């Protein structure tokens, strides 16, 4: 609750860009949550003929199957948001915990964690994706897991270095003298310190995940049935000869604009949060 | 002022000028002669470093700098950055406060000094190299250090490098910012010696910025005291130290270990409050403020030769003056001169100790000053008014006296509350509740329990020390400006005595009243006195600051030893 209040206060400190970004994200969230009510047309059934240009019936036109693009973008907002949130939270929380352990305990654990991050960086993502796909079955969950697997190292490294410096702070030394255990230190001293930096990197991960998912879809590694923004775009881009038709004007532009708008909005929020966080440090 | 090398006029620095931010420096003016020296002293945050930065022209937007900095007769603030660069370092150099980052961590010492030479002197490379080594030698560093990186140097060495760097282009003006921070005592001493030597040899005009009295005294001929961005006082270092005219200056001196070898240290109570543009910046912490001070910004004004002070009351005011006081008692026909032409001045907020052997007339003089005894001749003025009878005592902010004998000072039949509230009851101050409140506060101030049980106790059940404190509390409820304490501890056991004394001094520091303390105990005087009067057979034979007076081996003093 306290954090929410503080968060609200911080939003007031945002620049105009940041506030706009916040508004955009809220709109996208809104789209995602109420996607089925925001569009008259279903997102998964054809509701018109193929390739209708944007008009009063189909605001953003239809795709090759005659499915309304606005409905798909609304629903895609949900998928993309889930992927973004899922990855960011999973990687953010997991990475932070690992970072805390690594930084706090040091020694062998730290060494192993650092080596593992090295390995993760070079771990080939394509086959891992396919292997995981075979284990978990393809789908959003799989994509989230893979993206998280490849991105937890960022918060982990940040948190680790932060913990390394906080660990040396006198109040931690004092608390340890009083007999504080790891959990006490984590909750009392570490979390408040790392929360701001983690928050920034989580927001970063959020937009990275959305873009990465689109990239995976482009390489044919996404979940083709998920109907995320990346997938819509992937269908459009892979439609042979689309550049010679008029279709790209709505089929490509719509979802790319959505992706770019969202990630840019997040970027601006991120910048403002970073600014506030930095000014507090 | 033609011969002055640097002249600062109405220099102001305003951070975040676009957002009506705070002013770090306010209308500061001074000038400095070629080869002269000036110390700038003040607590941290008083704007000393900002002043130095402004002189070097290092502020960038949104910080605004107003006023003029004349080098010889050029206003540096009007120059473009490019032109200004010709003055920086070549004419005017600065030694920044020592920190890990003050030198570029990725460049060697050699490189950092060399680039100044390259920029400002026409020396050929080889000569420049040699000069770097000469400079290092000058500040007492071996040549090998030139190839080192800043992080490899100790704090003292870094300071030396900074000085060498500052002197590299033989500047006419050298600003030294806090040259002794983070140095141990020996290194500090060496650093001061080094600077003094260099100043003497190189003949540059030296501006020393420090919060340490010792540094200023040893390096600067003149001193400027800054508070909250304002100049509080300026004058010859000697004079200012000996006779501070601003309460702030006095506070600084009291807080300085070097100026107080024997005495306890007492900081200036209170914190610097956000300085509003109007009113005296020191208002909240001043112990002689009047209602005017809240709204009127004091201007720096001459109060003597080479002596200026910024105080609405013209510096530390003299609370009480006794002029040519004569008093004699006829005793069995013999007239005994108890006070013989005694002159005494007590300034606000200071502790004056009147010391003398028993029977030297101390108590008589005190009584005359307090107005309880009329003098034969001469007059006593309290805040410009004649002290007569109980006129000064029967009011708030007046003179209160605490007596020697605790047992007679308080009526033992009264309850504590009654005893303490007595003056209030007499003067019919406030409602009953207010009075009780004040009583409780006063008791708390003198470290007595303020609970209902205690205040309804009868005084006869109290010990001597407790009674003395009750007496003290009774004085305090009147919020006196001057407290005269007559041997108040002499009848107490040593431990209680020490407690009472510490209590008294603490109260004085916190509440800011002046005190005349009468004693025959030399050691005690040394501990608490700002100034001492020595009385012998009715005459005040010596007066001055404690070390001065007590080091003089005059007859009277000797007798006290």
């Amino acid at each position: 609750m306290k954090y929410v209040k503080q968060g609200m206060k911080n939003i007031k400190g945002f620049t105009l860009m940041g506030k706009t970004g916040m508004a955009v994200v809220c709109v996208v969230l809104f789209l995602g949550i109420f996607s089925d009510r925001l569009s008259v047309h279903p997102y998964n059934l054809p509701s018109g003929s193929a390739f209708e240009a944007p008009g009063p019936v189909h605001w953003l036109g239809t795709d090759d199957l005659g499915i309304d693009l606005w409905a798909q973008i609304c629903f895609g907002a949900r998928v993309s948001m889930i992927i973004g949130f899922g990855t960011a939270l999973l990687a953010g929380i997991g990475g932070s915990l690992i970072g805390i352990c690594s930084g706090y305990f040091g020694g062998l654990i730290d060494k192993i964690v650092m080596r593992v991050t090295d390995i993760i960086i070079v771990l080939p993502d394509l086959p891992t994706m396919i292997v995981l796909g075979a284990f978990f079955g393809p789908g959003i969950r799989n994509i989230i897991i893979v993206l998280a697997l490849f991105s937890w190292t960022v918060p982990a490294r940040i948190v680790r270095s932060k913990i390394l410096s906080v660990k040396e702070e006198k109040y931690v030394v004092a608390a340890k003298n009083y007999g504080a255990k790891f959990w006490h230190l984590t909750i009392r001293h570490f979390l408040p310190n790392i929360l701001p930096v983690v928050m920034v990197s989580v927001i970063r991960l959020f937009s990275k995940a959305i873009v990465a998912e689109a990239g995976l879809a482009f390489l044919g590694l996404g979940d083709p049935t998920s109907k995320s923004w990346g997938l819509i775009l992937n269908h459009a881009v892979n439609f042979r000869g689309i550049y010679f038709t008029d279709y790209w004007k709505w089929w490509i532009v719509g979802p790319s604009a959505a992706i770019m708008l969202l990630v840019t909005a997040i970027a601006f929020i991120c910048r403002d949060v970073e600014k506030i966080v930095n000014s507090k440090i | 002022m033609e011969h002055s090398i640097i002249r600062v006029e109405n220099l102001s620095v305003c951070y975040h000028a676009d957002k009506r931010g705070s002013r770090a420096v306010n209308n500061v003016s001074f000038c400095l002669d070629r080869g002269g020296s000036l110390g700038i002293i003040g607590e941290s945050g008083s704007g000393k470093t900002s002043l130095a930065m402004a002189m070097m022209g290092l502020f960038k937007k949104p910080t605004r700098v107003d006023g003029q900095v004349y080098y010889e007769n050029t206003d540096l603030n009007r120059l473009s950055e490019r032109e200004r660069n010709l003055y920086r370092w070549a004419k005017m150099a600065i030694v920044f406060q020592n920190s890990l980052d003050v030198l570029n961590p990725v460049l060697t010492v050699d490189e950092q000094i060399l680039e100044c030479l390259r920029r400002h002197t026409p020396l050929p490379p080889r000569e420049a190299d040699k000069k770097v080594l000469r400079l290092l030698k000058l500040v007492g560093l071996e040549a090998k250090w030139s190839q080192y990186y800043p992080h490899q140097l100790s704090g003292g060495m870094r300071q030396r490098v900074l000085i060498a760097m500052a002197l590299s282009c033989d500047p006419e003006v050298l600003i030294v910012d806090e040259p002794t921070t983070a140095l141990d005592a020996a290194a500090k001493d060496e650093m001061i010696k080094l600077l003094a030597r260099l100043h003497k040899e190189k003949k540059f005009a030296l501006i020393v910025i420090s919060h340490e009295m010792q540094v200023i005294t040893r390096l600067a001929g003149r001193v400027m005291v800054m508070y909250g961005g304002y100049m509080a006082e300026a004058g010859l270092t000697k004079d200012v130290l000996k006779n501070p005219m601003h309460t702030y200056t006095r506070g600084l001196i009291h807080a300085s270990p070097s100026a107080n070898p024997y005495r306890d240290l007492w900081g200036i109570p209170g914190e610097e409050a956000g300085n509003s543009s109007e009113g005296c910046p020191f208002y909240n912490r001043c112990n002689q403020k009047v209602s005017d001070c809240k709204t009127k910004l004091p201007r720096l004004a001459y109060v003597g030769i080479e002596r200026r002070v910024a105080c609405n009351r013209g510096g530390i005011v003299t609370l009480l003056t006794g002029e040519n006081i004569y008093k004699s008692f006829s005793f069995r026909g013999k007239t005994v001169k108890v006070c013989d032409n005694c002159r005494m001045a007590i300034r606000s907020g200071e502790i004056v100790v009147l010391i003398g052997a028993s029977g030297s007339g101390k108590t008589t003089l005190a009584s005359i000053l307090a107005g309880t005894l009329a003098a034969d001749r001469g007059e006593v003025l309290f805040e410009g008014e004649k002290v007569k009878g109980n006129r000064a005592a029967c009011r708030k902010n007046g003179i209160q006296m605490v007596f020697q004998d605790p047992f007679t000072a308080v009526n033992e039949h009264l309850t504590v509350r009654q005893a303490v509230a007595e003056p209030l009851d007499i003067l019919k101050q406030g409602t009953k509740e207010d009075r009780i409140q004040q009583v409780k506060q006063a008791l708390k101030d003198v470290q007595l329990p303020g609970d209902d049980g205690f205040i309804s106790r009868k005084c006869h059940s109290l010990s001597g020390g407790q009674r003395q404190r009750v007496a003290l509390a009774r004085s305090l409820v009147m919020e006196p400006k001057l407290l005269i304490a007559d041997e108040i501890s002499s009848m107490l056991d040593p431990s209680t005595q020490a407690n009472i004394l510490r209590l008294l001094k603490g109260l004085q520091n916190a509440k800011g009243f002046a005190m005349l303390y009468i004693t025959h105990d030399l050691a005690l005087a040394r501990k608490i006195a700002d100034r001492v009067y020595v009385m012998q057979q009715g005459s005040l034979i010596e007066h001055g600051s404690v070390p001065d007076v007590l080091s003089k081996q005059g007859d009277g003093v000797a007798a006290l030893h």
Partner: protein
Amino acid sequence: MRKRMLAKISEYLMTLLVIITLNFFIPRLMPGDPFTFLSSDEGQVTVTYSEEQIAKYKAYYGLDKPILVQYTSYISNLLRGNIGYSIYYNDHVSTIIGKRIRWTISIVIAAIVISSLTGIVLGSLSAWNRNGVLDKGLYTLMMTLSEIPAFLIGIGFLFILAAKLGWFPLAGGMKSFANYSSFADRIMDILHHAFLPVLTLSVVRLGEFYLLARNSMISVLTKDYMRTARAKGLGKMRIIFRHGLKNAMLPIVTRVFLSLGALFGGAILVENVFHYPGVGRLMREAVMVRDYVLVQGIFLLVAITVLTMNLIADIIYRRLDPRVS
């Protein structure tokens, strides 16, 4: 010192061994095998092997042996410097990679050099004029730029600069079968083909370097030594470059080398868009057709590159920053 170096190196070697092991097993955990083709891309054809053929091939490549035997023979071959013979591409892995790697390396290095230099210059300018119009404009632009998915940028360039305007070739690393009149011509042609991929990669990376340079420069600008430098009356350029940039460079240089480490992964999208003959595209194809040997080879290369670049970044950082010893 020596001991620490040894420890460090053995640590790296351990990491390498783990990676090699993962690289061996992960591809083999993928469903499918290199010889089963039941379907083809639309309009394309495929040869479906008979079971007998598959058995023969498996025996030929030693894939019929127990996996641990395969693993040990892989390791022992590695130690002998033999990284294998590609199943699908019918060539020595080293030859295949060797032919492709120069393309990837050259575009990635060019892109990183361009984007980091541009990023540093723009970032420094931005930081120096912090909160000015230039800074705000650049910042917004870069922020947006760094968030656009790489393949969109690539497709955009391909469509506009190559297809519509015809300034650049659409695909490939050089003109096929051209008779170059001189060596210079050949270089020109290669540069001409590399232009769009490099441009795309540079634009993709630019935002990152810009933001890093700007942040780094801003934090450096507030440092005491910058004040010292200004007080010394030094020229603006010397202050920015000698005093500012040299300090601000530290994180940037590290990032440059880490980016070089991520070389192959980073180029994959762009290589796909421009059909550039690099390793990234090869990697994707090798995974797609389950060419275990080639996959291992490429990932080994990737691992070694990343680790080497990490090491170099470490060393360079130590060189540049005298505080780290």
